């Protein structure tokens, strides 16, 4: 008997991006074939080449980043990564790609 918990390989993108740009990135993702959804996680602060920042006390959204978590099928990886990288590279941000397994492959 095959295990009921068969899993299927997919690709995970983690995109760190300025929160001001999140709506536009969302619009971009919504149009990309192969992207059926994404999830936005808040970021509290960080450190990088441009120094340290924190969300505390800020009234404007000017400073501050968000993390986008997006699961997709490997067949769309190349094209999605290309579009997203183009967007992110024009501003402050990072993208990492990794491999994950999921249970319901048809969602992605």
């Amino acid at each position, binding site marked *: 008997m095959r295990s009921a918990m068969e899993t299927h390989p997919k690709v995970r993108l983690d995109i760190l991006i*300025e929160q*001001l740009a999140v709506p536009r990135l969302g619009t971009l993702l919504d149009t990309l074939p192969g992207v059926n959804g994404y999830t936005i996680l808040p970021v509290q602060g960080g450190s990088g080449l*441009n*120094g340290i920042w924190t969300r505390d*006390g*800020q*009234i*404007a959204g*000017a400073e*501050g980043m968000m993390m986008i978590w997006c699961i997709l099928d490997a067949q769309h990886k190349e094209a999605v990564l290309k579009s997203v990288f183009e967007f992110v590279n024009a501003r402050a941000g990072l993208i990492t790609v990794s491999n994950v397994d999921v249970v319901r492959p048809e969602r992605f």
Partner: protein
Amino acid sequence: MEFSNLLSIAGGTLGSPVVLFFLLGFLAALARVDLSLPQPIAKTVALYLMLAIGFKGGVGMADSGVGPASIAPLLIGVAFSAAFPILGFAALRAASGLGRTDAAAVAAHYGSISIVTFLTAIQVLTDRGEQAEGILVAVAAAMEAPAIIVGLWLASRGRSETGAAAGPAPEEARLSVREAVLNSSVVVLLGALAIGWITGEKGMTDIKPFVVDPFKGVLCLFLLDMGAVAGRGLAQNRRAIGTGTVLFGLYMPLVGAALMALAVWPIDLSPAGKALLMVLAASASYIAVPAAMRLALPKANPVIYTTLSLGITFPFNVIVGIPLYIAIADRLFAGGSQ
């Protein structure tokens, strides 16, 4: 007597809880104690202050009517906001050694206005028993966008020169200006102005215990936070910006206030209103413009424009500038009528 008047205003300002709480947050930050508020609170307190000041301005407009005289400060404000960045850009390019994009971004901040500085000045005037026209709130709102447009134009002129795209893509620029014009602070400010205007004194009676009575206390809490954020930015980044740039953050408010004093001289406006226009001219944005620059000019260094407007010019205006501009306005514009 003029000097003692300045001193008395400065003393009154420095002895006000509002400014003392700002100093508490600022000095604590320099001593590495962070008194900033959690972000959801900081944003909401800012929204509350917009709502309150807008509403009060609107009720003021309903009380006294909005005559054709209101057009003049509006026009002056918009013209200033559009023209001042050009001056600032030239000064920065000549004396601060900033690149085109950074200079354009900074200049846009100084053409635009700081609503928090404006609020603080209104409080100082109120403490002295002076009240300005409600329309000033609309003037403040109208002064946000022109400087952004001009700033982006200044940055984009580099495109043709250098080949590389120093300025924003047109689509980015359009969206950023929309963002600046329609950011939630401005919409709440103008919306509350309209609601105050519509509901007038009756509306005021309804919500006075919310928008008027605790206002000054909430402003204390807010300036504690702003002091904390300003001091933190200064402590972290003072080495990242050059002396020429720091000096710009100190002389530019004086230049702006002086030019505005000339511009408002002939118009029909209360001395308090003229003082507030000088404060608007002297102040540098740190809500709308940083957001617009982040979006439209991602390659401009945010450390420079944020540290300068929030870490240098804002404290300078709160502690030195506001009493100075009020004293000058007092001398220039109230002298005749007394």
